């Protein structure tokens, strides 16, 4: 049995005899030599990941102005940084959007520009006190001018990510990238077998105080990340590092179209091979890592799982989904993840990057809970149940009569088996008359947007806004019409129930 300590390994780093391999090579080594021999031969396995990590940001200290100001609101290149911490400190979050360029610029880009040494326009306003007499200031700063710029990322290095597909018939722009309609592509994230937390899934070596590679600088694990959910293999880390020591090649501001701004962060974590057990764990292969393909076409927190896949399948570029071959895209860069792991290996071998023992182990049994929310209003709470319908063999004149008598502007059209076949509106009737149509089936809308009983009202309102319609039929699983929701009814009911108003932002 091999048992090494971190000190043993650090002595080897000191005298230059340390043996380091990148995580992608470890499975080969273990299958060739066996775990026992591999643990003797290898001292450190380096991991790496380079992916979009929205939950990132920097604490900045600007130094005091003259006359002094207590900053309440700070803009850096028109991106707001949170200034509710003392007088001249601020926290700039990667996902914060620019006030004027919106999705095209934001916190992630400011961080990249700072590291690249570019000048940043700064504007600040404050309130006047006896010790802070100044109201506002404008200046230009660079990274050098700051006292401190400390990256603190509350949630990085997710153990695994779900893959994303889209069942709807329109393209979705998400934090999982562009998802083409009808399952035409699958996007996934994470570095697979090179991923830091997959090589130490039980947090035996990675813990509070672990020295890591963070965007080219030496950083540290602060502790568990937010939403840390190791019980479900969704562990996360909170990490920190000195922005001033970072390399612009290992971090990048980016925009997911239609979603927002983020920061690509390069993280590498060294795993000390203390024993046979760690050799075995770091021998993980892409084929061993399973994740789920999730349907992002469903706008709920619990999205349906379409299938389970391995990273090996995802990385092959094609997976099978609903009987079709579908192309896959990673969103994090394997090329850069390899570069991170290789650079960390080089620093351990040649640059005296010493390993640090955990000060404390991370929790291994916590779970991430959903948000505590008051109950959402659902379609069934506001729908009209007494709906007038018409058969698809009726004439336009009959439909016109029904619209007039029932005072409703939208009438569902049913086929002979009682299922929803289309919708007819007062507007359809007037254009039909102008164009001299006679058959109802000719003029009705056949591609009907529908709602279901248990759908949250908020989603239905979004459907209405997107398609520019004011009412839609509620149907059951057999496409029978069981009600209608209309924007008029929604606003009437919302008027009565005050507590819903803020939630629906109407």
């Amino acid at each position, binding site marked *: 049995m091999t048992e090494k300590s971190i000190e043993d390994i650090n002595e080897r780093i000191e005298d230059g005899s340390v043996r380091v391999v990148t995580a992608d090579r470890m499975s080969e080594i273990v299958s060739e030599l066996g775990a026992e021999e591999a643990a003797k031969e290898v001292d450190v396995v380096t991991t790496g990941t*380079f992916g*979009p990590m929205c939950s990132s940001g920097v604490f900045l200290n600007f130094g005091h102005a003259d006359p002094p100001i207590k900053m309440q609101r700070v803009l850096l290149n028109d991106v707001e940084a949170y200034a509710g911490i003392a007088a001249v400190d601020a926290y700039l979050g990667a996902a914060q959007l620019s006030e004027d360029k919106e999705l095209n610029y934001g916190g992630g880009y400011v961080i990249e520009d700072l590291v690249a040494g570019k000048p940043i326009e700064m504007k600040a306003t404050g309130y006047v006190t006896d010790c802070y007499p100044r109201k506002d200031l404008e200046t230009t700063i660079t990274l050098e001018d700051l006292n401190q710029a400390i990256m603190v990322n509350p949630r990085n290095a997710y153990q695994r990510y779900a893959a994303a597909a889209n069942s709807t018939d329109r393209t979705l*722009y998400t934090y999982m*990238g*562009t998802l*083409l309609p009808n399952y035409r*592509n*699958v*996007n996934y994230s994470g570095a697979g077998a090179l991923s830091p937390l997959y090589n130490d899934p039980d947090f035996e070596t990675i813990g509070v105080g672990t020295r890591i590679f963070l965007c080219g600088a030496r950083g540290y694990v602060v502790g568990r990340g937010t939403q840390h959910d190791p019980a479900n293999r969704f562990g996360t880390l909170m990490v920190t590092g000195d922005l001033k020591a970072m390399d612009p090649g290992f971090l*990048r501001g*980016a*925009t*997911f*179209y*239609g979603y927002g701004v*983020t920061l*690509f962060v390069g993280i590498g974590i060294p795993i000390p091979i203390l024993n046979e057990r760690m050799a075995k764990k770091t021998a993980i292969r892409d084929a061993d890592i399973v994740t789920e393909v999730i349907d992002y076409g469903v706008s709920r927190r619990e999205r349906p799982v379409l299938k389970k896949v391995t990273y090996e399948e995802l990385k092959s*570029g094609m997976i099978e989904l609903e009987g079709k071959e*579908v*192309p*896959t*895209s*990673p*969103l*994090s*860069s*394997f*090329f*850069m993840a*390899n570069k991170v792991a290789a650079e960390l290996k080089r620093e351990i071998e040649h640059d005296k990057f010493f390993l640090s023992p955990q000060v404390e182990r991370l929790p291994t049994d916590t779970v991430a809970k959903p948000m505590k929310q008051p109950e959402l209003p659902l379609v069934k709470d506001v729908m009209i149940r007494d709906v007038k319908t018409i058969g698809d063999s009726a004439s336009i004149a009959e439909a016109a009569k029904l619209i007039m008598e029932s005072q409703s502007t939208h009438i569902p059209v049913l086929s002979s088996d009682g299922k929803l076949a289309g919708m007819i509106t007062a507007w359809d009737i007037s254009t039909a008359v102008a164009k001299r149509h006679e058959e109802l089936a000719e003029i009705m809308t056949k591609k009907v947007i529908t709602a279901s009983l248990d759908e949250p009202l908020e989603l239905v309102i979004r459907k209405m806004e997107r398609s520019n319609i004011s009412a839609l039929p509620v149907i059951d699983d057999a496409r029978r019409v069981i009600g209608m929701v209309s924007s008029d009814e929604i606003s009437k009911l919302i008027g009565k129930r005050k507590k819903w108003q803020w939630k629906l932002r109407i």
Partner: protein
Amino acid sequence: MKLLLKYPLPLDEMPYTAEVILETGAKINIDLATRGELIVDVPGDDVEHVAELFREKGVEVRRLMKLIAWDEKRCIHCGACISVCPTKVFTFDPSWNINLEEEKCIRCEICVKACPLSALACIE
């Protein structure tokens, strides 16, 4: 309008472009010149005539509507462009570098939105 000119091989160093400028009096700008290939910008009214003259000299002429332009320095090889492209313009090489086969591009511009680094653009 931009034209892609492919000179006949072997290159015989004939000053075709200069000749065409003299013969037509058209204001032709050279946008890009590599060995054997040229991208030129020609005023709309002269395009027909200019293209004709080049063809007569044995030069292959292609009209460029839009080109997919890739900013290699900005690209981080994330691969977000791969799965959205209908004609498989993008592929990974064995070391996970992105490769482009531009000639397959049908200029649908889907990848332009999909690239998180704004490293892709359709240029006129």
